[in-house]
């Protein structure tokens, strides 16, 4: 066997599709010609709304499903025709899928036994992984006697003990409570760095998606709509969908007043802004209607002081939800409304009550302009 040529991606999907034929006439295109690649040692997260085809993609990579089109390559070799048991791509499931009739030790040892390793080696490897994942002392317990967090760690241990080159996760934290989720997330990242494995991680939770990966793939309706570093995607969403799903943005139809060499001038209600052309997904023309997205966190909110500068306006608070780390305001904004997120710098900010007048400051360098889709 030859070493893969330098530059060959570790895992590569080439226009992979999956169509579920429900009846003779009715079919669902769950995954639609998806292509992406993952480099060795990379941590990649696949995010998208529920039902967009994430699990289907993952299950095709694991080998549980046969693609209806395209090719999947591991280290340059096609694995599309192989069964899951021949791929050595373990997966951590949302419901953990621990074997209920086996104790923790046997669950972790399952894959090692399938590889016909000697008992000594198995005992040693299992002990090691238990040590690493803080499972020492639970070896003889059955899955139903474990806490959620422990079950999750056994599921992780069971895959990691095989020292796989690549590991798949399908929403592994969605059955955990918020605190455990953050803890386990850190754990997964730590293990990945420590063991230098490649990870493809599926989630629909944006905070989870942004915090761990080296790279993010955003999926919608069976297609990859954007990929890049989390920061890039958050700051430069390429479509309204991404701006909405990742940034939870406000959207307004705006009119293009004039187009300059670097900026485009737009009118939002009675306000006028200059948006950099870098922040437009197309080259706008004068008088065209475009879709403006404004991330709620980029708007500053303060007590009105009678002075209104450029990019500022006065609005009335309709609702204020306190979420601990922030205040989430909904304000009347001319004839529509606008959402604003104000970080809770403790003691330093006043909370405005519904009915109060406030001054908003927009920062046009954070605006994004999209073509309006018919």
């Amino acid at each position, binding site marked *: 066997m030859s070493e893969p040529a330098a530059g060959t991606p570790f895992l590569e999907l080439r226009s992979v599709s999956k169509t579920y034929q429900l009846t003779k006439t009715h079919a669902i295109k769950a995954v639609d010609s998806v292509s992406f690649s993952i480099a060795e040692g990379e941590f990649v997260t696949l995010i998208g709304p529920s039902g967009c085809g994430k699990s289907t993609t993952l299950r095709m990579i694991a080998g549980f499903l046969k693609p209806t089109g395209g090719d999947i390559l591991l280290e340059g070799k096609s694995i599309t025709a192989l069964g899951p048991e021949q791929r050595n791509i373990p997966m951590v499931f949302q419901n953990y899928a621990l074997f*209920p009739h086996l104790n923790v030790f046997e669950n972790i040892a399952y894959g090692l036994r*399938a590889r016909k390793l000697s008992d000594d080696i198995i005992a040693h490897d299992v002990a090691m992984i238990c040590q690493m994942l803080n499972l020492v002392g639970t070896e003889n317990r059955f899955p139903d006697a474990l806490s959620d967090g422990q079950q999750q760690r056994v599921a992780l241990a069971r895959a990691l003990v095989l020292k796989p080159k690549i590991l798949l996760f399908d929403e592994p934290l969605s059955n955990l409570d918020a605190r455990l989720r953050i803890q386990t997330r850190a754990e997964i990242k730590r293990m990945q760095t420590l063991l230098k494995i490649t990870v493809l991680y599926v989630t629909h939770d944006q905070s989870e998606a942004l915090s761990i990966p080296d790279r993010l793939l955003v999926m919608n309706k069976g297609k990859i709509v954007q990929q890049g570093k989390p920061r890039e995607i958050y700051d430069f969403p390429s479509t309204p969908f991404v701006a909405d799903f990742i940034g939870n943005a406000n959207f307004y139809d705006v009119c293009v007043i004039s187009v300059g060499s670097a900026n485009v001038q737009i009118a939002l209600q009675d306000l006028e802004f200059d948006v950099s052309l870098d922040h437009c997904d197309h080259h706008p023309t004068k008088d065209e209607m475009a879709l403006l997205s404004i991330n709620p966190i980029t708007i500053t909110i303060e007590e009105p002081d009678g002075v209104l500068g450029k990019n500022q306006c006065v609005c009335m608070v309709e609702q204020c939800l306190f979420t601990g780390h922030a205040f989430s305001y909904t304000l009347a904004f001319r004839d529509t409304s606008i959402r604003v997120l104000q970080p809770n710098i403790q003691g330093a900010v006043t909370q405005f009550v519904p009915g109060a007048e406030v001054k908003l400051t927009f920062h046009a360098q954070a605006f994004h302009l999209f073509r309006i889709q018919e």
Partner: protein
Amino acid sequence: MHETNAFRPTRKSLMKTDPALFSALVAVWLSFAIFIFLPVIRLLITTFYVDGTFSLANMRKVLGTSYNIKALYGSLILATSVSIAGTFLGYIFALAVTRTALPRPLKVLLGAVTILPLISPPFTSSISLTLALGPNGMLLKALGIGDFSIYGFLGTWISETLTYFPVAFMVISAILNTMSATLDDAALSLGASRWRMFTTITIPLSLPGIGNSILLLFGASLADFATPLILGGHTFPVLPTEAYLMITGMFDLRGGATLSFLLLVPALLVFFLQRMLLGKKSFVSVTGKNGARTEFAKLPTALSVFICAVCLFIVVFILYLYAIILWGSFVKVWSVNNTFTLEHYAYVFKHGQKAISDTLLIAFLSTVIGSVLAVVIGYVAQRKQFFGKRFFEFTSMLNYALPGTVVGIAYIIAFNQKPILLTGTLSILVAAYVFRYYATGIRSVIASLEQIDPALEEASMSLGASSVRTFTHVTIPLIIPAVLAGMRYLFIHCMTAISATIFLVSVRWTLLTTRILESMTELQFSQASAFSMVLIVIVFLADALMLYLLKVTTSKFHKPQEISYEKVGA
């Protein structure tokens, strides 16, 4: 003094706080006393009381006869072999339906063929086995085998296995279906081969179903009376037939009672084991929410091929047996004069008319009464708290746990004399069926109630409905599918069962199944076949009607029920 005072208020309170429950309990306990306790106690008295004192004389006498000992061993050996072979076949069929790539129509066919033995009278496979492999048997002639006797252990074993494996199929396919498919995926993705997955995941997780099936089949075979009566012959006696022959042939009620006591012991043992097994928490329900819609991984190819081959063979054999019965009912004299005739059907509708109408009336009455009782008992046992609840539940199932022969003998002993003289009446037949076969109804009502969040009933009460109104307007509509499912089996059992009622029929009230037996003992095979066909058609039509009702009601209630589960957060 102090204690009785402390106790009294709670006693009073049930009558006051829930008068409906109180009166229901009184009525049900009263019926238990008459139709469950009285017969069993009279049976024990007849066995162990001689001239007013406790005595083992009957037992000694019965056990002193080597033929009876042979019957005891015969029963146990037969039950063991049938439970193993039947469970094996049932497992194969269940795997074929849940784990192979067979096309859907074929899977439906497999399911349909396994329904056949369930809706047939217990003699069907015995009759056709006799016709195929008995003296002058068709298959024997075709294969050119001269010296072969179907009578004895072999024939009984084959026939009972074919009759009871569908039960194993149902129990095991239910458990194979509820397994989480992601476990298969997990095993494969950890590198296990498909064989390894099958032996380390699928088989261990289906063990509770296998255990349950073995016990069910053991009990069913132990109690089976019709098959060994026709196929056992003199060389292979078993307890139920010996007890029957002792009572009807030698009029020895004491001997029959004692033999049936011998049968009662292993039957109760199986019953207790089964309750223990079901009481244990099953593995299958441990893993909760599923991530993705998944299908079970396919089995190793060699195993799939083996499974399909076995299924094909069995299906063909079963269809062949039913074809023989059909054919047999249309020829003049079986294997002697093969000209086509309708005379057997003419006979059935002329001389068997009373049996048909009697059977239908009895089955109808039993189904209605049994269902009402099943709803009340199931509801009370699942939803209410009261003193002696476990014993209540146990008692309700007792007649079902006992072999039919035991119940039949106990009933003739108990109701043959005043104060409750019922021999020869319609009531005794109906009572025997109701208290035996309402058990499936109770089980399905309880299972259905376990799925329905009590918050629905609490909501109804908190909106001001009384407990009776809540029961009739909220609970009943929700459990109707379960009740209908229970009714379905109740009706089938009442149409086809014979082991208990063979002792209870009379000139005034007779049953189709007993007519089949009479024809068989008179060696009128064609007549027996015609009776069987008529019975199968009636049961099939009634069953189809019941299934249709079930479908209509479930489709009507399915959606709102689902929504309310979610809202309630169950």
